[in-house]
């Protein structure tokens, strides 16, 4: 009862209570804890304050208790000394008469017990010290409602022999009812003193039992006061630290919100600057940064706009004369039989090169459109198997001319992907014509070469792979094939009349879909190009339904 309990501060961790019940609440609580500086500052301040208050309170209580007990001990020993003095005086004065010892003893004890009853203390009178009778063995005279066991054994032992000095000890006073049944304990002080009874010449030890009820009440009052004060203090500290951190955190949060808005493209957002302190300077620097960013982005946007405009202009300016030349070429080409052979051949070459020029221009414009970010998807559910068959149909003439056999290897179920059918067809057409161009090993056109188009699809993605068995790709070339105007061997003549932009455009088309376009090849074993498209636009790809390295490829020699 006298021990001070460390006051417990209010729980500073939000969400700590329900954390064991719901994992979701726990996660939310932890997230809040991790995200909120304010919560952490307030919590640590409150915990530290609670520790300090507990230590100070404990010290204070110790001091108070010691002081109270010291005072009480002094007061009771003085009172006992008075009592014993008075009793001795009375006994001495009565010693002249010849009195019966038992009468004298009962006179003495009854008087002291009566005084104890009025003054609020209990009395236990033990038997003569010379006889060595223990209190526990009985034979004591005591105040009613005070048990003889209230006297501590250590104190009793002190009075084993006569003429011992007065002594005291803390004890637990045992109260009894009228039938000597124990009804309660309370802390108290036991003071012992010896009285010499002249009638029988024996020494009796009188134990005075002083309850510490009053002191206990005072202590509990002090404890209550300290607890209340500590709790109020904690609440106050929590409130103050919450307010103080709020002052710092609020501008930081505002800066965060503005930064988020800037990041989402609202470039005109700025922080409000008030005052001249650190936070105001942070806001000023932040705003400067935002302004610089805004200016840079505007410049880039302007550049991009100029670029797009340029592309559109070039488009118009180049296309019109090309149309005229084209028509003139057609007229000449139609009339070539009327010319002499050299002029006729010239007309043919003009026609052929115009075709190439036109394709090149179209490809260049397409690439510029990608670069300007002007390309848009018009998506629909596309079955890659249909695409493969359509592409094979349109490239059959070229394949036959090059003595290449096109094979389609497709499953029974449709392989669907949400895609722009025009772009996907263009990708596949590019891959197939590229494969036809490189289908013959070392340009050997004697036999019939194969190009296999494999299609596969699942719930996540659809893929199409074009495999040829021609010259293949040297190590490192599989990444370079998608570069603009890249040639495997600069010395080798271009046979197909391709522009050198086909695979680059295919790559851009694939990126637009969020898909993959990859190449595999090994010298002498041919190559495989694989296009993988996510089932839904914006879906992420984890794996392709088709392997990049074809299963028929032999293991590389190491």
């Amino acid at each position, binding site marked *: 009862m006298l021990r001070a309990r460390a006051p417990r501060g209010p729980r500073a961790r939000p969400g700590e209570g329900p954390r064991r019940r719901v994992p979701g609440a726990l996660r939310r609580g932890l997230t809040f804890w991790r995200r909120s500086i304010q919560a952490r500052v307030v919590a640590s301040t409150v915990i530290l304050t609670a520790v300090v208050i507990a230590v100070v309170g404990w010290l204070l209580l110790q001091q108070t208790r010691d002081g109270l007990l010291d005072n009480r001990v002094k007061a009771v020993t003085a009172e006992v000394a008075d009592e014993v003095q008075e009793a001795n005086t009375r006994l001495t004065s009565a010693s002249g008469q010849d009195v019966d010892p038992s009468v004298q003893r009962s006179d003495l004890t009854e008087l002291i017990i009566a005084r104890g009853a009025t003054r609020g203390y209990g009395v236990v009178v033990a038997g003569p010290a010379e006889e060595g009778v223990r209190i526990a063995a009985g034979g004591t005279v005591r105040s009613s409602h005070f048990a003889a066991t209230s006297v501590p054994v250590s104190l009793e032992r002190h009075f084993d022999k006569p003429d011992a000095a007065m002594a005291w000890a803390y004890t637990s006073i045992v109260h009894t009812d009228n039938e000597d049944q124990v009804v309660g304990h309370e802390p108290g002080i036991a003071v012992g003193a010896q009285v010499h009874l002249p009638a029988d010449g024996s020494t009796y030890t009188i134990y005075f039992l002083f309850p510490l009820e009053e002191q206990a009440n005072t202590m509990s009052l002090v404890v209550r006061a300290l607890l209340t004060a500590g709790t109020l203090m904690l609440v106050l500290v929590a409130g103050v630290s919450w307010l103080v951190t709020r002052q710092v955190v609020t501008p930081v949060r505002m800066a965060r919100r503005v930064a988020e808005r800037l990041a989402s493209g609202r470039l005109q957002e700025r922080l409000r600057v008030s005052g001249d302190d650190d936070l105001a300077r942070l806001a000023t620097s932040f705003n400067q940064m935002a302004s610089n960013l805004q200016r840079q982005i505007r410049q880039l946007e302007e550049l991009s706009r100029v670029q797009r405009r340029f592309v559109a202009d070039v488009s*118009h300016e180049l*296309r019109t*004369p*090309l*149309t005229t030349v084209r*028509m003139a070429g*057609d007229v000449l080409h139609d009339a070539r039989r009327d010319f002499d052979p050299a002029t006729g051949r010239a007309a043919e070459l003009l026609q052929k090169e115009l075709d190439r020029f*036109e394709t090149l221009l179209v490809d260049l414009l397409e690439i510029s459109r990608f670069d300007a970010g002007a390309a848009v998807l018009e998506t629909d559910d596309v079955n890659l198997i249909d695409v493969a068959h359509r592409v094979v149909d349109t490239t059959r003439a070229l394949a036959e001319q090059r003595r290449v056999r096109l094979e389609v290897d497709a499953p029974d179920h449709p392989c669907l992907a949400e895609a722009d059918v025009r772009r996907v067809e263009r990708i596949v057409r590019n891959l197939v014509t590229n494969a036809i161009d490189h289908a013959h090993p070392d340009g050997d056109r004697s036999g019939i070469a194969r190009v296999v188009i494999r299609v596969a699809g699942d719930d996540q993605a659809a893929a199409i792979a074009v495999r040829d068995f021609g010259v293949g790709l040297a190590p490192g070339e599989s990444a370079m094939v998608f570069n603009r105007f890249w040639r495997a061997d600069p010395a080798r003549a271009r046979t197909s009349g391709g522009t050198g932009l086909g695979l680059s455009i295919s790559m851009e088309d694939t990126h637009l879909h969020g898909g993959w376009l990859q190449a595999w090849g090994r010298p002498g074993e041919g190559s495989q190009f694989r296009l993988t498209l996510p089932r839904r636009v914006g879906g992420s790809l984890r794996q392709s339904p088709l392997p990049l390295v074809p299963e028929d490829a032999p293991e590389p020699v190491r």
Partner: protein
Amino acid sequence: MAEHAAGAMDLATKGRVLVVDDDASLAEMLTIVLRQEGFDGRVVTRGDLAMEAFHDYRPDVVLLDLMLPGKDGIDVCREIRAESGVPIVMLTAKGDTVDVVVGLESGADDYVVKPFKPKELVARIRARVRRNDRAAQESLVIGDLSIDVAGHSVTRHGAPINLTPLEFDLLVCLARKPWQVFTREVLLEQVWGYRHAADTRLVNVHVQRLRSKVEHDPENPEIVVTVRGVGYKAGTA
């Protein structure tokens, strides 16, 4: 004498083509090619002179560039369409932009993207003037509309509805087989004469324009009905 000459030319040619293009070389080259194919051609290089030439020349087909000095090609297209249903084929350098849609919405029937192959252009022009050849007596009913195919007129309860030849062809195509759903690709082939897949925006834009003329409420069409995911069909109501 002049009338006689013009009449003789009409007999000699398959049709008159007005070329409106600011590029003089291209325009002249176009007339050379058209003449080889049996058409008569006249060139205008400024937008603001186009209407004058149109009234004077009364062409069977107009080839119209969109970027013109003097007056924008889109405006010229609208003005011609306001007074005549003559087929208009746009010449554009930008095949993938909103220009195409804007041009179609302002009244053009078809478009070709530069650089075009001359034969492709001639095929387009032929498809547009081909309707002059047929003259069979035929009358169709679609919804509450009556169509006189030979007389080239559409009436609702006796009141005529003014359609361009292309819109008329589109309506007749749907009305001839009211049980059939036409995909956009089939319509492109039957109405526009495309043999290969082409821009289906052509169909969408023209169906909208047709609806705005023949439907009671173009928002809830009853005569030209959309079949979701497939195409269009004639309404049964």
